[in-house]
């Protein structure tokens, strides 16, 4: 071991510039900038009001993707997130519209429901040891099915009965500085909270340790089971916020399967990991991923492309991002 001092000193010298590793590191950001510039040139309505509306519409997606970032960092999947969101949205709207509940109590009941769903997922996966992918697929299906049956598959609408203050969570008056709507500020707030948790606290360090090697984490005294279960509770909490902002925006609880939102949220989280230097799931990356997907989507809508084309484009972006990450990783 005495001999290793010489090479270790010279290790500080920088490796030669490599196009591939550069692309793998900055590819996502560069592609995002390139697409924004292209769309802005093609259509002068792209930046304003296009981007602003995009952010507004994207905020439920971002909230869901944030929750997923927490579980993905610990090596788990949660496929029930849109199921929770959909069921919670229905509960809150039903309580206010059909049962004349005061909106705060309705939201609190929704929150309790989401947290319980998270606790159930977390217990099944972390304490009982069931595989997260298939477990949350099952709980998600159950939630969707229940939601569907509860209103005979119809949307629950209530533009008349939802109080203005509740509607404000979905649209609200734009703020005077950046002209962004309330849901954007709510999601920014949640993103900052989760970012602080994951990258600045002991808990966050432990989360990444679990993602890296759960057994080594456990033998280092980390409460692996509790933290993994908590990840699912975080997903539940984010799903509630997403449910409130989305039902508030459309004044209804929409009865769709939510699969495109689910896939979009995963795509955003994986894009974010691809953009990070060490390919870890992280909050700023997820935010970037959501903006990227929405920016491309919005641009293609303005250019008049159909849903199919947009899906193809997003699929290709995801494949490319993953490919560059792999190539970059094998070169390191």
């Amino acid at each position: 071991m005495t001999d290793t001092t010489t090479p270790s000193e010279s290790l500080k010298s920088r490796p030669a510039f490599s196009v591939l590793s550069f692309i793998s590191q900055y590819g996502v950001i560069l592609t995002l900038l390139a697409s924004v510039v292209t769309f802005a040139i093609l259509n002068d309505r792209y930046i304003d009001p296009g981007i602003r509306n995009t952010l507004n519409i994207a905020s439920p997606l971002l909230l869901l993707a944030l929750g997923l970032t927490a579980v993905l960092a610990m090596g788990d999947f949660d496929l029930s997130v849109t199921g929770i969101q959909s069921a919670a949205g229905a509960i809150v709207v039903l309580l206010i519209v059909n049962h004349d509940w005061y909106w705060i109590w309705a939201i609190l009941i929704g929150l309790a429901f989401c947290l319980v769903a998270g606790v159930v997922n977390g217990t099944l996966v972390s304490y009982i040891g069931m595989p997260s992918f298939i477990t949350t697929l099952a709980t998600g299906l159950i939630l969707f099915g229940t939601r569907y049956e509860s209103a005979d598959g119809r949307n629950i609408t209530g533009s008349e009965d939802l109080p203005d203050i509740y509607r404000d969570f979905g649209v609200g008056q734009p703020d005077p500085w950046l002209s962004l709507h309330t849901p954007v500020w709510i999601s920014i707030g949640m993103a900052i909270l989760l970012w602080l948790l994951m990258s600045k606290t002991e808990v966050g360090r432990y989360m990444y340790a679990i993602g890296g090697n759960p057994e080594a984490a456990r033998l280092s005294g980390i409460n692996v089971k509790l933290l993994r279960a908590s990840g699912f509770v975080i997903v539940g909490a984010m799903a509630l916020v997403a449910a409130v902002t989305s039902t508030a925006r459309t004044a209804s609880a929409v009865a769709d399967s939510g699969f495109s939102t689910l896939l979009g949220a995963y795509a955003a989280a994986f894009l974010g990991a691809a953009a990070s230097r060490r390919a870890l799931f992280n909050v700023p990356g997820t935010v970037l991923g959501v903006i990227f997907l929405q920016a491309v989507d919005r641009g293609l809508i303005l250019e008049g492309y159909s849903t199919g084309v947009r899906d193809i484009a997003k699929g290709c972006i995801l494949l490319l991002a993953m490919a560059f990450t792999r190539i970059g990783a094998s070169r390191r």
Partner: protein
Amino acid sequence: MTTSALAVPTPLLNISEVTKRYPGVLAVDNVSLSLEAGQIIGLVGKNGAGKSTLIKIIAGAEYADDGYLHLNGEPLELHRPHDATDAGLAFVHQDLQDVGDLSVAENVMLGLGYPRKLGLFVDWSELYRQAAETIARLEVDIDPRQPVGELSVAEQRLVMIARGLAQEAQLLVLDEPSASLTDEEIEHLFAVVRRLRDDGMAVVYVSHRLEEVFELTERVIVMRNGQLVADEATASLNRASLISHITGHEHAQTAAERRASRGVGGRPDSEVLLEVEGVSADTGVNDCSFDVRKGEILGLGGLVGSGRTELARAVFGADHRQEGSVRVHGQEIRDNHPAESMAAGLALLPEDRKTQGNIMDFSVRNNITLASLDRHRVRPRVPAPLPRSEKQAAERRIDRLSIATPHDRQLVRLLSGGNQQKVVIAKWLEQGADVLIFDEPTIGVDVDGKEEIYDIMEELAAEGKAVVFISSEFSELVGVCHRVLVLHEGRIVGELEGDAVTEPAIVEICYSQH
């Protein structure tokens, strides 16, 4: 330096002036050598000496920056691992690389194309027949239909060797093949290797266990700092001269000499730090009781599978304890609660640093502070780590333990095995445990690294901590331990203290149990 002491006319594989640079490191520095058929060649050197890189180049897993390979006089171009296999080079890596769920036969014939029926369906009976034929050449009794995951480590290695035979390999490279094998299994492995040699195969045997190199090989190649520093007939070397080739300086001490020169005696007469009483676990640990005093180094010896690791895990609470109690500083600790054991002052440095000791994708710094993160808070009541404080702590440990890393933010994955082990040690020193259980800390660690790890254990004992040292190399136990407990089938079957701690005494206890 490349003058082979044994002049055999046609070399099988010629390696000429091969050089490989990694960013900032010259991993292989202008190495030339030739390997002849029908010979067992030992390849030794410290961790980071360039052995693995050289093997990877021959295996086609890494490209050489410079130099040529010739196989049977023909230039050999390797672009991917498959090329090496096709050329008749077979590799058995230290980490088993077989597919556990597949049967023995499927693994043996993996990558060679299974026999077909009607051009589409696997002809299973033919596959089993071919595999059984190949395995029979090793004179072992393994059922080709059994899933590989159910075999012992030794049998799995033999399956890997059989795969080499099936591909008609001319050269077989064995990387640390004896790790976690029992003595009997090692003897059997040696017999297989010798038979392959007699059949005309060239065998490269990589090992840190020098006794094995002397017993098995005819020629030894020593690498140091990426260079080939010795290439000699084994018979012309002795242990001391081989060690001085490996380390580059003149010193070689037997375990007994080390014990004498360090003045390792009986256990100190001080307070008891760890008390283990009647511990049993369903991992096979059976009614074990012992205690360790302040300043004592207690060795746990025994053959592989005797239950040492299982005992350590049950004591620490990594596994469930069925019966018995564990007290640290007189305070009873609950089972299956690693965090509680740690709080009481007990630490376990697990056997496998890759799967249990380190977070390989974390930096050196983050691994070192992982078990003591709450000491680096921004404010005492705010559970957020302060990078500056972590950096100071990590750098202090890197310095104290001379961990070879360019900086504290290097990923642990990129360090050599010995340095990864030191990172695990650093983590627990930083955590401040009073009782440290080291489970096989020197596996895969080179001569100098081992010596450093012994020194660390001795320093800890001198500082008033208690150390439990588990090792399969009895000479290590003799070199440092005040007292040695010998395990067999999960029970403590013998205890040696002070001058009674000798290698023959430990071996005697191990083998008198049958």
